[in-house]
């Protein structure tokens, strides 16, 4: 049976819808030309420092003429807009949008630090660090949602894991702390799974309850114990130090950015690759996706829907626990109340951005990590935009992503729907 496209005029109407985005590109280009070149004379330069602070290899600085660079970027974006208007990027559209976003940001950086210099590898390195909990959280989300359970409780799982990892690592060592952090995520996920799968509670409500509980219980113990001087030793875990991966870390720019990180980053790379393979190439992955898409079909083929879901959610929690441990023992070396600050939700936005696909979601996580690192970095420079407004950037981008600039992304068909086994 051949799959046919219908008459041509209908095709053209479909692509009309994306004209708006072509226009958006052109507007972005104009904004760059008009705004970003205003107070720049022809000889102002922007220096991009490409040597990582802690790296032994030296790379030459990249010195750019600020105005020319901005105009070149604006022209590229403008051309992309015209191409989109006339021909259209069709399915490559998301990729193009990402590239345009990066180019625009680059132009913005060149403008912001014109006449001065900025360390690009430093910026990218912070991007990777900041994206760790987001990407790990997105993996947790994918695992749960692919099985048909909406998991907005990742935030709570992460927060609880950050707490227990910190306390246990303070009492023993970092590795035991990490293990306990992971298990904490799994335990909370077990509660979520029980509510959603066994008791058929509304997934969003269950997640909200868990998030509230996690904030309450961690803050309770925090205030009762680790904030008082008597127990201060409970919140002094230290943290995992970055180490270089031989060979890889010698690659210019990329090496120090990606391969001079701590254990969490390396676990994250492995996780993304393994999960991507497992979901799409293994028996386990096939069954996981089937219960998220059409649980009844899976049931009629002898797959235990609720058991598969419960296990997926618990595994999701273990992964979220890993991501949560990062906040305390992978980053600052202590636990603070509500330290996850909504990263669990941003992770979900990264997941949606990546269409529930691990590799793409990791890309989304890097994007949000970049937004965070840029708002941190530019706060130092005397930019026209105040730091508190810049700090909104990740949240604003999340809303834009969810608002479907990248098109309405549709998740697993049975997401959030409890499955009632008919064997009664």
């Amino acid at each position, binding site marked *: 049976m051949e799959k046919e496209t219908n*008459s041509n005029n209908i095709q053209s109407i479909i692509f009309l819808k994306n004209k708006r985005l072509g226009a958006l590109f052109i507007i972005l280009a104009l904004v760059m030309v008009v705004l970003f070149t205003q107070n720049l004379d022809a000889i102002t330069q922007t220096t991009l420092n490409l040597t990582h602070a802690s790296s032994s290899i030296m790379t030459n600085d990249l010195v750019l003429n600020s105005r020319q660079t901005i105009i070149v970027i604006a022209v590229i974006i403008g051309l992309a807009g015209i191409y989109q208007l006339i021909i259209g990027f069709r399915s490559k559209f998301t990729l193009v949008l990402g590239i345009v976003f990066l180019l625009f940001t680059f132009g913005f950086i060149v403008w912001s630090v014109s006449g001065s210099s900025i360390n690009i590898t430093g910026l990218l390195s912070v991007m990777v660090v900041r994206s760790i909990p987001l990407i790990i959280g997105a993996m947790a989300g994918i695992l749960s949602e692919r099985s048909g359970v909406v998991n907005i409780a990742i935030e709570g799982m992460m927060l609880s894991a950050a707490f227990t990892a910190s306390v246990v690592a303070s009492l023993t060592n970092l590795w035991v702390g990490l293990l306990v952090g992971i298990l904490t995520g799994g335990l909370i996920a077990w509660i979520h799974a029980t509510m959603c799968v066994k008791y058929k509670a509304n997934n969003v409500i269950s997640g909200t309850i868990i998030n509230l509980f996690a904030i309450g219980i961690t803050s309770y113990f925090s205030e009762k114990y680790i904030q008082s001087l008597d127990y201060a030793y409970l919140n002094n875990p230290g943290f995992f130090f970055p180490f270089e991966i031989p060979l890889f870390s010698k690659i210019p720019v990329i090496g120090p950015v990606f391969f001079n990180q701590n254990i969490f980053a390396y676990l994250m790379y492995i996780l993304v690759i393994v999960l991507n393979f497992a979901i799409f190439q293994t028996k386990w992955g*096939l*069954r996981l996706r089937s219960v998220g898409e*059409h649980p009844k079909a899976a049931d*009629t*083929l002898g797959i235990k829907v609720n058991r598969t879901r419960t296990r997926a959610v618990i595994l999701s929690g273990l992964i979220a626990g890993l991501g949560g441990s990062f906040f305390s023992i992978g980053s600052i070396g202590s636990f603070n109340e509500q330290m996850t600050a909504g990263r669990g939700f941003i992770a979900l936005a990264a997941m949606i951005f990546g269409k529930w696909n691990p590799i793409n979601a990791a890309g989304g996580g890097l994007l949000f990590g970049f937004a965070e690192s840029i708002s941190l970095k530019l706060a130092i420079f005397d930019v026209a935009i105040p730091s508190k407004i810049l700090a909104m950037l990740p949240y604003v981008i999340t809303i834009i992503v969810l608002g479907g600039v990248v098109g309405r992304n549709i998740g697993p*068909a049975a997401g959030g729907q409890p499955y009632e086994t008919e064997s*009664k």
Partner: protein
Amino acid sequence: MSEIVLELRGITKSFGNFKANDNINITLHKGEILALLGENGAGKTTLMNVLYGLYKPDQGEIYINGQKVNIQSPLDAINAGIGMVHQHFMLIPVFTVTENVMLGNEQVKYLDVLDRADTATRIRKLSDAYKLQINPDALVGDLSVGLQQRIEIIKLLYRDADILIMDEPSAVLTPKEVGELFLTVRSLVEEGKSIIFITHKLREVMEISNRICVIRAGKVVGEALTKDADVNRLAALMVGRPVDMNLTKSPLRAGKKVLEVENVSILGRQQKAEVNRVSFDVREGEIFGIAGVQGNGQTELVRALVGLIHPIEGRIKLLGEDITKASPRRITELGTAHIPEDRQADGLVLQSEVSDNLILNRYYLPPFAKKHLIQTNAINQNAAKLVESYDIRPRNPHVPVAKLSGGNQQKVIIARELSRPIKLVIAAQPTRGLDVGSIEYTQKRLLQLRDEGCAVLLVSTELDEIMQLSDRVGVMYRGSVIAIHNTSEIVKEDVGLLMAGVDLTNPQKVLTSQQLVDKSV
């Protein structure tokens, strides 16, 4: 008679106080096609779900090849050699054919890694052996319903099932596809498989089966060899009373055009054109039927006619007013009644009371609302009146509508939609899933409306219903209306061929898309 492969003894299954199966005994012989005949809600599907391990019976035993078996789950059934083609296909649209077939019984290369290539080869072999023409790499969501059903059959063959249950397999097929299905079924029997064929269509029973078992209200009420069976007697057994299979229809008195559809095209969810330059009109006092297999654009067309989605091109006029971009409310206010296809999702608010559902499209008008305030008394009076006159049971209008049976839920919708002055009725699959009594009621009501001068647009996948009720019939195929005929001037078989996209002037050929556009009427 050959050996008995399956025996059900004394199967009883209740849901609350309702006995869906009451002490049912059935035997199936090797290489036999047993037809399980009964109307909707008689308990056929429940029985088969018991056999397939989806329901646990309250009482009764199952024997396979003389051995008592304990079937607790579908997995047990599959292991016992039982396979089932469900009425609603159990396929995952975003998976490939291979993935759908292998699911639950996966072949792995090593560790847990799927061996897709090997499974695909097996599927090709099975497909060739039974002439099923299945491409293992296709995405299931892109395939036609007929092909999807063949995937369901391959799923069973892949699992070496010997006893095949087919639940209403012809309901979603064109007559041509039904013919092909019957060929497949016969070749399966030749290979030594035994088949239980569930249906409520007498004609099919007579054509395909060796033996017939009639079920009514959860009980076996008759058994016969097909060659000895008599159609009228079977019908009476099935329904429990003599049935008048012919509706009396008064002569047509068509008036002026009420609904005019010109060149309408509609985009579906996946940005695919679901409706392709469709034109037709419906006049006062006639029933215009739209025939077609499910999924050929009827759903989208109806949604556009009632204003839920808007066409990307073309015009729709109601009583001369352009309603192409009108809101559902405007269209309702112009006198359109809509009996939606999915009555639970579109027609009702299940958790709300019957009384609220009865005013769902008029709550803002007097007497139900005055100065934006809800008038509880008027709503209750209206509910009491309608519950009585439309015989909605239970008579209490303050129960949530979810607690009503399917037939009574449909009555709530009919009562709401027809208890006000209307010019046009759009009825989409109005009898689907209803019992015979409710079907009769609904069909008579539609005819009555026609005789009162209403324009009726009837969208149905039931060819018999279309032929009996409508004055003119338009056939939809892949989003186009490929032919419009007076019902009196075309035979049912030709409509069936049209539903399969066969060009009547050249029956060897199925219409291509370009021809569809050219042929649009």
